[in-house]
């Protein structure tokens, strides 16, 4: 187990180097001029400003030199300076990551809880109407374009019914809690500010639910098929033969075994959650990594794009590694090699 973990950890820098290299050369192969972003359209006619900016951002160096500088800086933990915000990319990312993590984590919890309930119901009503409805709903969940669903939910629950809060992490003119974890819900509780917590939580709920939709169907299907498979196991027959009620067998024994593989989905879900973050944050004015990625892509801010890709890659690889380790820990039959 330790050897497996170490070997996988050793692979991560290699994969990250690949990601950085692809992102770097991709961004430098661009036809449009990054100076437009750096100095602004108005100053492009001013040769002094342009020359100074070119020197300052090292754009006068050759591609190989730029790549080398980028890599050596990266090893020291410097992701470069954003063309757009003019502050270090690492600081930008650090400031925005907690918002995305809070959203993604909530979505994951919603997907696992609702998905398990749905999967159990589907398995217990196998072949009947509820099962069919859940199957269609599961398929529909992964068929919906999240950005459109976000608009529909906002229109119905915020604009028409008025029961959901406005987009954003907090209501207008509400001051964020003192920064500890960056999660507004956690920080407001730490500060003992209950009204602030309810405000942050209310704002979190709808985007997190929409984000969970992409995952919900997969969880329902997995739990359902696992439940059905486990129901045929010998221990179920034994428990039933000893006189245990069917519902009790299902809740006590089968469910516990059936939801173990859900852990494997968490790794796969990281990619889906990042995709959701990009689109849902745009709709809900959520100031996280997703909106940062969109703003950077639109503004041709290449140090920032490379940084976002790097963070996305790290999250993705860590998610997969944690999944493997968690699965092997929970299920002793799994051997990591």
């Amino acid at each position, binding site marked *: 187990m330790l050897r497996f973990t170490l070997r996988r950890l050793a692979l991560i820098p290699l994969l990250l180097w690949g990601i950085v290299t*692809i992102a770097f050369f*991709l961004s430098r192969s661009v036809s449009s001029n990054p100076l437009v972003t750096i100095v602004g359209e108005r100053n492009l006619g001013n040769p002094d400003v342009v020359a100074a900016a070119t020197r300052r951002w090292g754009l006068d160096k050759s591609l190989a030199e730029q790549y080398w500088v980028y890599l050596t800086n990266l090893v020291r933990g410097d992701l470069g300076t954003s063309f757009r915000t003019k502050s270090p990319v690492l600081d930008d990312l650090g400031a925005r990551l907690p918002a995305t993590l809070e959203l993604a984590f909530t979505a994951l919890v919603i997907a696992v809880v609702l998905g398990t309930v749905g999967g159990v119901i589907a398995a217990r009503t196998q072949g009947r109407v509820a099962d069919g409805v859940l199957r269609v709903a599961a398929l529909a969940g992964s068929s919906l374009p999240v950005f459109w669903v976000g608009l529909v939910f906002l229109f119905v629950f915020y604009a028409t019914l008025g029961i959901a809060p406005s987009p954003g992490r907090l209501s207008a003119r509400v001051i964020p809690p003192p920064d500890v974890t960056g999660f507004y819900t956690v920080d407001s509780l730490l500060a003992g500010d209950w009204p602030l917590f309810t405000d942050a939580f209310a704002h979190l709920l709808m985007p997190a639910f929409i984000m969970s939709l992409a995952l919900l169907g997969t969880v329902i299907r997995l739990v359902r098929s696992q439940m059905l498979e486990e129901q045929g196991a010998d221990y179920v027959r034994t428990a039933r033969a000893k006189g245990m009620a069917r519902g009790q067998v299902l809740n006590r024994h089968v469910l516990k075994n059936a939801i173990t593989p859900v852990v494997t989905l968490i790794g796969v879900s990281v990619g889906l959650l990042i995709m959701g973050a990009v689109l849902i944050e745009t709709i809900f004015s959520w100031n996280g990594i997703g909106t940062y990625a969109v703003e950077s892509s639109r503004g041709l801010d290449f140090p920032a794009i490379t940084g976002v890709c790097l963070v996305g890659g790290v999250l993705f690889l860590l998610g997969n590694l944690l999944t493997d380790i968690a699965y092997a820990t929970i299920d002793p039959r799994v051997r990591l090699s």
Partner: protein
Amino acid sequence: MTITAGPLAEAGPFGGTALPQAPLDDEKLPFRARLRRFARPQIVVGATVVLVWLLVIALAGVLAPHDPFSSSGGRLLPPSGEHLFGTDSLGRDVFSRVLHGARLSLPIAVLAIVLSVLVGSLVGAVAGFFGGWVDAVLMPTADITMAFPSILLAMAVAAALGPGLANAFLAIVAVWWPIYARLVRGQILSIKEREHVLAARAIGMGRWAVLRKHVLPHSLTPVSVNATMDLGSIIILVASLSFLGLGALPPSPEWGAMITDGAANFYQWWIAAGPGIAMVSVVLAVNFLGDGLRDVFDVKNRGR
């Protein structure tokens, strides 16, 4: 399609892998019996909706009541008999634009998946069949590409190439090919140990000929089923890039770009509703179809 992809794991009598248990060709079955296997509710519903959309693509010019690119009355009019889905911020008929948008969104997605399958299959087949250093170079490239969350890589490619539907298309192919490379490589690895391939090699057939005639055809079914199942995701990805301003540009009636206009005119709900409902109907139909085909052919391997 005559091959079913059954489980391939069991060891055969000569140390290779056994032939799949499912009948290899159902061509001997009468046509109606073969057809009956496809008579599942998901497939019938999915195929019907897809057919309707194919008709729309063919006849968009005739079916659309108004010009999709020029104003046809007042701006921001709610749905009415004259304008089924209302009009947008420039007074264009949303219904007509949705119909014309199908001509962009759907063919682009199909082309993107076909090109991804071609590139991915070629890479995966070569890597799996020849193994050795070819495999050691090609597959890590695929793995690194897959370690990017797909939307981030697609956004980076689209940003580097500049906005436009053609560039969004290239970005999606750049993101999607490794999935098929992985899938096909796995298939090839199991097929190339089967007896008929060993026999073909033994009688002196060349490696490329064996690959083309005896190995690749057998991986066709899982690849096409997976391609059908991925088509929905690709349609959404194209629209997502356009929605973010990295794909189709105005005045294009691409569905994602239309939803951007709908988001800008948030209280005129019909502008986003039209293209959204169209997209949901297509993606649901395609996913139903893929789900049904997966059941028929019993394809489990997702390659990721």
